[in-house]
């Protein structure tokens, strides 16, 4: 892996650390109000300043890392699980099944992400009646993000499986009597895991970006939870007088996305030299 890749990995390590600790990286709780010091710029006490309710912005941004990262990671796992299965089956079976499965994927793929996420969120929120109100929106958003990300994973997996299927070692395995399921799961899948890993590295920042965008529009996460998108949205409203409110959440998003892209590009170079992902 190249030097920029290590830089990306280091940035992400810090991020994971912050996400694990949440507002524990500061002396304040994320919902704690300091009514004497509202809407203050950065100072020695509040390193990133405070918001309209006197809450410490650094604590809120750190807490936001937890929400953003958790959602991004879990939705990426979901996307990988569905996408690899769907794309794998489609590519492996080929023929008419493949054509139909992929037609469906093409439709979802070409619609704008945000549109699909917003529609799916509405559906899940209506469907998840057993979940406490507080978490329902969070869960709905996670599921919607996973389902949107799933499509591109399926396309990639299908292409890779189609390629692998024609190779001599697959034919050899089949000649030795290896069954379909075993062939797909134990032979083909490990062989295409490199490009899949690279894709996963790019899916995570895409999920973070989508989540923060939806939340920025006011259609995603809602209080008491605060992701970076929510913080940026709050900050945008008061941007002219209090630019620090939007500055810090934006920086957090930017640094995270750059980190993931650096790592992704480096991984691509290192483990997927043929540029399959």
């Amino acid at each position, binding site marked *: 892996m190249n030097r920029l890749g290590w830089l990306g990995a280091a940035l992400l390590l810090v991020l994971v650390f912050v996400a694990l600790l949440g507002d524990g990286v500061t002396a304040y709780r994320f919902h704690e109000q300091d009514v004497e010091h509202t809407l203050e710029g950065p100072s020695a006490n509040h390193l990133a300043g405070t918001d309209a309710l006197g809450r410490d912005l650094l604590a809120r941004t750190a807490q936001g890392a937890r929400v953003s990262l958790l959602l991004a990671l879990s939705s990426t796992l979901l996307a990988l699980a569905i996408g690899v299965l769907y794309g794998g089956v489609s590519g492996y079976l080929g023929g008419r099944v493949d054509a139909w499965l992929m037609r469906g994927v093409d*439709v979802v*793929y*070409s*619609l*704008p*992400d*945000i*549109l699909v996420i*917003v*529609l799916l969120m*509405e*559906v899940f929120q*209506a469907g998840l009646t057993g979940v406490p109100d507080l978490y329902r929106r969070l869960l709905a958003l996670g599921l919607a993000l996973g389902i949107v990300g799933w499509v591109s994973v399926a396309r990639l997996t299908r292409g890779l499986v189609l390629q692998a299927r024609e190779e001599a070692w697959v034919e050899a395995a089949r000649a030795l009597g290896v069954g379909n399921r075993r062939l797909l799961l134990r032979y083909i899948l490990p062989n295409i895991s490199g490009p899949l890993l690279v894709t996963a590295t790019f899916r995570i*920042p895409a999920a973070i*970006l989508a989540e*923060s*965008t939806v939340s*920025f*529009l*006011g*259609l995603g996460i809602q209080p008491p939870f605060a992701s970076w*998108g929510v913080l*940026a*949205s709050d*900050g*945008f409203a008061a*941007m*002219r007088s209090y*630019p620090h409110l*939007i500055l810090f959440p*934006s920086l957090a*998003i*930017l640094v995270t*996305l*750059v980190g993931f*892209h*650096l790592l992704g590009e480096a991984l691509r170079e290192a483990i997927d030299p043929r540029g399959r992902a």
Partner: protein
Amino acid sequence: MIRYALVRLAQGIPVLLIVASVTFALLRFLPGGPFDREKALPPEILRNIEARYHLDEPVFKQYLRYLADLARGDLGPSYKYVGRDVVQILREAFPVSVKLGVAALALACVGGICAGLVAAMYRGSGLDRGLMLLALLGVSVPSFVLGAALVLGVGLWLGWLPAALWEGPLYAVLPAITLAALPTAYIAQLTRTSVIDVIDLDHVRTARAKGLSELRVHLRHVLRNALLAVVTYFGPLLAVLLTGSFVVEQIFAIPGIGRFFVTAVTNRDYPLVLGVTLLYGLLVVLANLAVDLLYAWLDPRIRLGGREA
């Protein structure tokens, strides 16, 4: 060619029908109607309203009614904007979004291809590295962060350009830049990679051996091949621009489709949400068709119908 275009266009109709049906089903089964208020309406008034919009009929009948109206190009009345129908709203908002989108598209293509070509020609130089660093930032920065920075920096602090609203060409500059940033950066990366792939091929060496100037070699023989990769990106590019327009129109208070969609979702204005989804579905079908035709034109090896010779 025309026959092929017509066939492909006809293939898009079932896709649109599926999109319409799925969205209809999704939205109609959601709880919470457009007429839910903090304070409940008297039941007789609610009944009247529901009868007015045919919400009291069986769902299947509503669906058929919707499809029949659709075939006539009627998307029904908006629930929120009383007295206006969806087609009317879309007709007003669409040109605004199109102008913004076309400006961003032009910016992204010209800027991205130029930057990618220059970076590839001076591969490894400081210029290349600088451009690619910019491109990395471009694919990483969310549009609301860039938009906010432009509003604050260029619009409010420097006061060079209007920071919001939509009242003339100058008002389009900042939103178009915001919308174009991501695709420009992506196209630049794409162009650079594919130019570098092509640069060592035989026909390029022949062109050089003929004594063509370096610039001419790049423009005539390298770029044409490299553009194929960029053209395949045009399909997803539309989705990127549409997604971006939701945010950009919100930030700059532009009365386009994206802005109406966000409000329509919050208001549960089902017909408007459906209308926007359908319009976008139609755009996507048309864009994919355009990409296929453009591809066939750029690469003579690809015979119409998708088979490779």
